[in-house]
């Protein structure tokens, strides 16, 4: 097991190098002009001045030199400086915004897991009934409805029209204590972010359970006279949970994308909003930095999923020992 973890972690820098190289190449072959992005719109900046700006930021150095310097910096954890956000170091920017996103994603993930499990089990238990149909239809709806559309309507309905929940932000701006994350502000974006994932997971749990319920060992348990509820929870569910848990690791990647849209709608000061602003301002160093961090997160998530899989599946555990 330890060997597996170490092997995977050893590959991580190589993966990062590959992704970094690909993004660097893309940046080079694209016609994107960083000086334009820096000077902003409608500025009477002379060509000579633009050349000076390019030189000041190091945009005009030859390619191999720039690449080498960039990779070298990356290895030390220096992702360069944001061109737009006050020239601040990209790594620091990302670190300062990560907390808000972690709270959001953490809450959403919890809802996805709990909701998926609960409703998946219930739908399987009551399969064929109206309740099952209702759950399934709502799930199909949630997988097809764009999350940002739902978010928009939810913001409008609950915050603006009904006024039950705050209209965006992560905490009360007037509060004396340092700005942070506030449960009342967290509810709506968290729920909206979890909807698509929750729908997939519910369907997955339900379908896997139904498959498992057809297997021999379950039939055997029934034949022994064990009640349906016990059969479901003690014999079927554990097997269904194994692949379920591994999906968690991969679902993380989905949630990252979801935060970009949700944080924009709700004005949540996390990494998603940072990505959106970076895109609008065409701040390439920042976008690239966030992409690389996302890459790390996803690889770690997959690793976690694989480890959990091996921990939980007794057959694999047997094979390993």
């Amino acid at each position, binding site marked *: 097991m330890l060997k597996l973890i170490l092997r995977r972690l050893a590959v991580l820098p190589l993966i990062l190098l590959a992704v970094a190289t690909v993004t660097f190449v893309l940046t080079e072959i694209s016609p994107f002009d960083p000086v334009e992005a820096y000077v902003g719109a409608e500025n009477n900046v002379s060509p000579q001045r633009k050349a000076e700006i390019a030189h000041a930021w190091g945009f005009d150095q030859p390619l191999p030199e720039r690449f080498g310097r960039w990779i070298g910096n990356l290895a030390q954890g220096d992702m360069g400086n944001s061109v737009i956000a006050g020239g601040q170091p990209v790594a620091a920017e990302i670190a300062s915004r990560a907390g808000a996103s972690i709270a959001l994603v953490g809450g959403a993930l919890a809802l996805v897991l709990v909701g998926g499990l609960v409703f998946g089990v219930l739908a399987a238990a009551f399969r064929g009934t109206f309740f099952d149909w209702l759950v399934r239809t709502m799930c199909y709806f949630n997988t097809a409805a764009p999350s940002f559309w739902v978010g928009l309507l939810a913001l409008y309905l609950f915050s603006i029209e009904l006024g039950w929940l705050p209209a965006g932000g992560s905490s009360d701006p007037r509060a004396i204590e340092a700005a942070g994350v506030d449960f009342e502000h967290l509810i709506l974006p968290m729920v909206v972010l979890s909807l698509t994932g929750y729908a997939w997971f519910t369907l997955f749990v339900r379908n896997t359970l139904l498959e498992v319920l057809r297997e021999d060992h379950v039939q055997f348990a029934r034949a022994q006279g064990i009640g349906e509820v016990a059969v479901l929870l003690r014999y079927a569910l554990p097997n269904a949970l194994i692949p379920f848990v591994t999906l968690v690791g991969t679902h993380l990647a989905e949630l990252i994308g979801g935060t970009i849209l949700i944080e924009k709608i709700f004005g949540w000061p996390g990494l998603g909003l940072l990505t959106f602003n970076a895109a609008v301002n065409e701040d390439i160093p920042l*976008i690239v930095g966030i992409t690389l961090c996302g890459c790390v997160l996803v690889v770690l998530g997959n690793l976690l999923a694989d480890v959990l899989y091996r921990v939980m599946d007794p057959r694999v555990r047997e094979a390993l020992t």
Partner: protein
Amino acid sequence: MRVAAGVLGLLVVAALLANVIAPLDDTAVDLDRVLNGPSAAHLMGTDEVGRDLATRVLHGMRVSLTIAVLAALAAVAFGTLVGAVAGTMGGRVDTVVMRFTDVAASQNHLLFGILLVVLFRPALGGAGAVMLAIGLTHWPSLARIVRGELMSVRERPFISASVGGGASRWRLARRHYLPHLMPAVGLAFVLTVPHAIFHESAYSFLGLGLPAHQASLGNILNDGQRSLLAGGWWIALFPGLAILVAAMTIGTLAEYWREHLHPRWRSELEL
């Protein structure tokens, strides 16, 4: 299932005939009828410069479907290429290519796509950049499918028979591999389209897609966000419904097709 097929058929026909049913003029501004609610004259109301919303949603559907289909095609093309290289060459090439595919598969589509859109928008325009972004983020599952199919086909006796009979690589590809791949790739293509619709509207919603005055479902939604509080809830509701309906019907049809023909790819294409 039949309902889904029927609705989809209707949508596609309506979208294709959009220019005939209700010709669109992006500049058909009517400043006297700004933000009117749904009525007999305007079934879905008017938008913030007085244009008829129903017309725009119809055309938006056409634009979004077109871009989604083209983007899915791009994904299929690139994925097939990569999968074919891995599947036919085997060995080390296969390992390296599939590792690369794994890494690409684990990237978040929207995040990486945003980088691509920002970088290539000046050259390709909004629509082109979005198509590129969707194509370059959705190819991995296609590559896996193509590779898997190719690997299994290569073992089959009729292939060895062909090779024994002196068939060239090209003949093999054309007469044996391609027909075998078609159903799989076709299904994957159809399953990618709802994703592509979602992504196109997401990019446009963020302001990174098509130019704002053109009718695309994401653009209209973006306009809708601004008009929400001024009372224009219909601008936010209808385009979203259109995306929902399109995605649901295509998805349902594809699911049905898959259940019937190829239960094997459940894990590939599910999440």
